[in-house]
Structure formats: C-alpha cells, structure tokens
C-alpha cells in the first residue's frame, strides 16, 4: 500500500487498520451492520419534521450556500458554464442578499472557464475527475485527469471510486487510489464519490464511507448523478453517521455531499434536518455539507421568495441558466 495519506492525521489505531489488505478488510467488516428497515424508518421519521417561518428561511439560505451548482453534460459549453457561474455568484439577481453558491462543478476541461468566471467571488470550482463517472480507466489516466483539473485551478476535486474493485473486495486498491488522488490534489479539497446506487447495501455504503475517510477524502459524496438511485436520505444518514463517528474517533471534521435527485426545497430541508440531528449542528455549513444539484437552486430561490413575499412565486421569477 502507498504511504498513509498526508492530510489525515490517522490515529495509531487507524494507521494500523490501513497497514495491509487483510487489516483493512477486517476493520471494514467489523463495522456495525446497518439494518435497512431501521435506517429507512429513521430517515422517513426525521423527514416528517415541519420546518416553518424563520427556521425555513434560514434553511433555504443555508441550503443555497451549500449548493455545488453542477453541469456534467456532454453538451456543456463555455457559454453554459459561464452562465452557471454567474448564477452561482448571484443566484437571485433581484436580491443581492441571497448567499452565493458553494461551488460550480464541471468536467476538467471546463475548469479554466469556471475559474475565470468566478475569480474573486469566493465561489469554489469543483472538477470531477478520475474517469468520471464510471472510474473505468488506468491509474495513470486518473492521476492525469486530476492533475489537469488542479492545474487549471480547481479548488475541489470530485473523484469516483472503482466500484468494481470495491464490490470484489479489493479494498486496498480502492484505498490506494483515493490516497494517490488525494496526493495529486495538493491543496485542492477531495470529495470521494462512492456511487452508492451501485453499492447495493447500506453495509457497503458504511464500509465505503470509512474507506474514503481512512484514505484521506475531505468529503464523502453519494453519487455521480449518472446512476439511479442517486442520493437518498437513508444513504445520507449512513454517511453522516460515518463522519460523526470519524469525528468522535479522530476529532477531525469531514464533510458529506449528497448529489443527484435533490430537486426541491422540501427535499433539501429534509437533508438539512438529517445533518442537524444525525451528524450535529456543526455540520450545517458549506465547509462540511454540500448539495450536488442543478435544478435545486431555482426551487430554493422560488421558495425563498414565497417566504419573504407572503405569496407563492413562479418559475418565471427565477432565472433559467
């Protein structure tokens, strides 16, 4: 295995865990199981929280500030990315007090465009990398992909794990890939996409989450958005439990990013409630929680107007980018 990730001050216990393939396997398989029915019920139960008035407005603004405004299409162009950047800087042009988005998330070749468009805004530029979305390429390509993005100015890298390796139990390989990419990221923040829709069980989500954290991921992220199901509430619960437990063990704060399928304010608030009550209030910050989304932002803006104006708003009052 490669040297332990530099960024994470692994406690001796965890350094030991990652010593070799069999230690890693023992550790991951020794994690408490996740009962599907139980976690889904808890997620549904928390989903009934009723967030009203000032607390709703706070949630909307917080959610806006957590959005990684994303476009990951074959048809992406410089123009499309620029307009997305404009949206990220100033989500609601009529209302300058609306917080800016957390980042814009694009393919590596469009990072430069985004960096330029967002210069000085404080909005991050995230790039997917490592043969996104399938992760099916050589390590050399994945490293080059990452270096390209970082060289172009990406402040955040969203890598995908090799789900094939994970599902066939080659945890060491997945660990090494993440650690290597983390190294290639330099100062850029690394988000590790687990693609939970392909992991099949919550037990696997928990193991993959820990693998991502052990290998040095700053964030663990649910999905590429290219696989269904993408983010779900119970999957996010399991990942929030992982970062909470990581914090309890190491004192380090790591983030979670659900991505894909979160389209409405109602959805977003359910996620924030989960963040608040499963991980804890300190995770209610763009430093530690993001939404990977494209259409969510407009619904948040519409609902924000509804809250403030006292009547329902409509799609023509928010910008389509």
């Amino acid at each position, binding site marked *: 295995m490669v040297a332990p990730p530099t960024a994470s001050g692994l406690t001796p216990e965890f350094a030991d865990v990652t010593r070799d393939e069999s230690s890693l396997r023992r550790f991951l398989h020794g994690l408490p199981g996740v*009962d*599907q*029915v*139980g976690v*889904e019920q808890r997620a549904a139960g928390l989903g009934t929280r009723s967030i009203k008035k000032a607390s709703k407005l706070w949630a909307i603004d917080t959610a806006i500030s957590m959005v990684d405004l994303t476009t990951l299409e074959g048809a992406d162009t410089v123009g499309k990315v620029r307009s997305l950047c404009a949206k990220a800087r100033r989500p609601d042009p009529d209302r300058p007090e609306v917080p800016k988005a957390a980042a814009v998330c694009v393919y590596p070749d469009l990072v430069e465009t985004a960096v330029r468009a967002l210069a000085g805004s404080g909005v991050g530029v995230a790039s997917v990398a490592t043969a996104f979305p399938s992760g099916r390429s050589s390590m050399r390509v994945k490293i080059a992909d990452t270096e390209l993005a970082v060289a172009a100015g990406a402040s955040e890298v969203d890598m995908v794990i090799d789900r094939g390796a994970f599902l066939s139990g080659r945890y060491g390989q997945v660990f090494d890939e993440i650690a290597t990419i983390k190294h290639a990221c330099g100062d850029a923040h690394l988000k590790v996409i687990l693609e939970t829709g392909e992991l*099949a*069980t919550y037990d696997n989500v928990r193991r993959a989450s820990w693998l991502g954290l052990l290998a040095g991921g700053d964030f663990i992220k649910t999905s590429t958005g290219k696989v269904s199901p993408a983010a779900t509430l119970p999957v996010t619960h399991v990942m929030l439990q992982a970062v909470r437990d990581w914090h309890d063990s190491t004192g380090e704060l790591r983030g979670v990013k659900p991505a894909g399928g979160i389209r409405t304010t109602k959805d977003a608030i359910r996620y924030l409630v989960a963040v608040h009550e499963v991980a804890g209030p300190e995770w209610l910050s763009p430093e530690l929680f993001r939404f990977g989304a494209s259409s969510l932002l407009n619904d948040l803006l519409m609902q924000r107007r509804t809250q403030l104006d006292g009547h329902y708003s409509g799609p023509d009052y928010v910008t389509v980018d």
Partner: protein
Amino acid sequence: MSDRMSVLKTYKLFIGGAFPRSESGRSYPVNDHRGNFLANAAQASRKDVREAVTAARKAFPGWSGATAYNRGQVLYRVAELLEGRREQFIAEVAASEGVQAKRAQSIVDGAIDRWVWYAGWTDKLAMVFGSSNPVAGPYFNFTMPEPTGVAGVLAPQQSSLLGLVSVLAPVIATGSTAVVVSSLDRPLPAITLSEVLATSDVPGGVVNILTGRAAELGPWLASHADVNAIDLTGAPESMRADLERAAAGTVKRVLRAPSSEPDWTRAPDISRLKRYLEHKTVWHPVGV
C-alpha cells in the same frame, strides 16, 4: 390356594422422579367402593406441594426445550407401558371406582388411547396454533405457541385413571410440567400411573403426583407464585371461587371446572391444550 402371603405395595408420592413419603409423615386409608381397606396412601402436605413445584420448575426448561417429536415419543411410550400393565390398571380401576371388569377395561383402554391421542399432538401444536402474520410493513412476523410453564392440576375426584390422564396428558403434551393432586378417595391408579411414568422416558419432575386432599393442597397450589396455571377440575365446588381468587395473585391461567365432572369417555378436543399454551409473536425486519 397358595398359602403364600402376598407382598403389599406401599403407595407413596411421586416428586421429581422419586417416590418419597409425605414429609408430614401422614397417610390415610384408602378403601374400595364397598368400604374394604385397600391400602394406605400418603397424605401430602403443603411442603410436599412446595417440593413438587420446585421439581416441576426444575424440569421445565428441559421438557419445554425438548423437540416436539421427542415429547411425542415420550408420551407414546407412556401408552406402551400402560398397555403392558393393562391388567393391573383394570384391577385397580375396578377396585377404586367400583365398576365391572368390562367397564374397567374400557376405561383403561380409553386412558391408553388418550395418551396416544395427545402424543400425536406435540408436533402439530405449532402448526395449528401458530401463524405467520402478514403485517403491513417490511417485517417477517410469526406467532408460535409455547408452553405456559408449571401447571397445578387438581385431578378429577371420580374418574381415577381416565379423568386423570385426560387432564394430565394435555399439560405435558404442550411442554408444560405438572403438579397433580390426585383423587382423594381413588388415588391408587394415580400412584400406579406414576410408576409407569417413572419407568417410561418422562424426565423426572415433568409430572409430580400428590395424593391427598385437594381442599387442603389446592389453596397452596393456587397461591404459589411459581405456578403459572391451575386446573380446578377436582376442587371442591365450594372452594373454586376462592381458588380462582388466590390464583389471581400472580395472574395464573385458570381452568375452571364444570359443575359436575365431565364424561371423560367422550372424545377430547383441543380446549385443554390451549389452556397451557402462550402465544409468542416475533418480529424481524426484512432487508438487505
């Protein structure tokens, strides 16, 4: 006629697989229906009740934990051994109940058949009384019958063998264990039955038989906190309400007695089995 003196049997209690005399040292004469002396029977005391309950409780985990198939075989074995001592039982029933030999034969045959009937029930209880329950949620849910525990049985006063078997066999068929107070005036078949039980494969303590007065022992059984159920069949009618009240002290399952003793020759049904069964419902989530 031979001039040899016959060896008379000493009739004792049956507790925990052994045959002790009553700790009280008491005995009472048992006569046949004409008033001729038959034997002395031990007259059990409340302390004998206590010992018997302890033995029954001790035997409960093993007996209730045995496979249903095994319990069925054990009960069937009782029938086999009873069959082998058929003549002895016919003589005792005839003497005790004052019936003609032919009637005594039919009673003994009925008792043997009753063991066979209940022997066949042991591995069907869960099928008949259990269920899988289609709850509205992602759970596998099933209900299974389990034995109630230690049962106190005040056996019928009239029917010394068939009645006794009819009230005892369902108790142990379910996996419960029994403390039986036999008929006061007709206890000899009960003691002989206990000899059969002792030499069959029924583990010691599963059945405990006390001879003596239901009126004296009933209240101790009914109020004993480690007894889970009580059958009032052989209780004096004037005491039944009091025994039921005493049983309420630890929420016992009570088998009330009909005002007159049932006709035990009639085909049995499952009602007695049901009285010694609890239902346990188990839930488990279904997921991956």
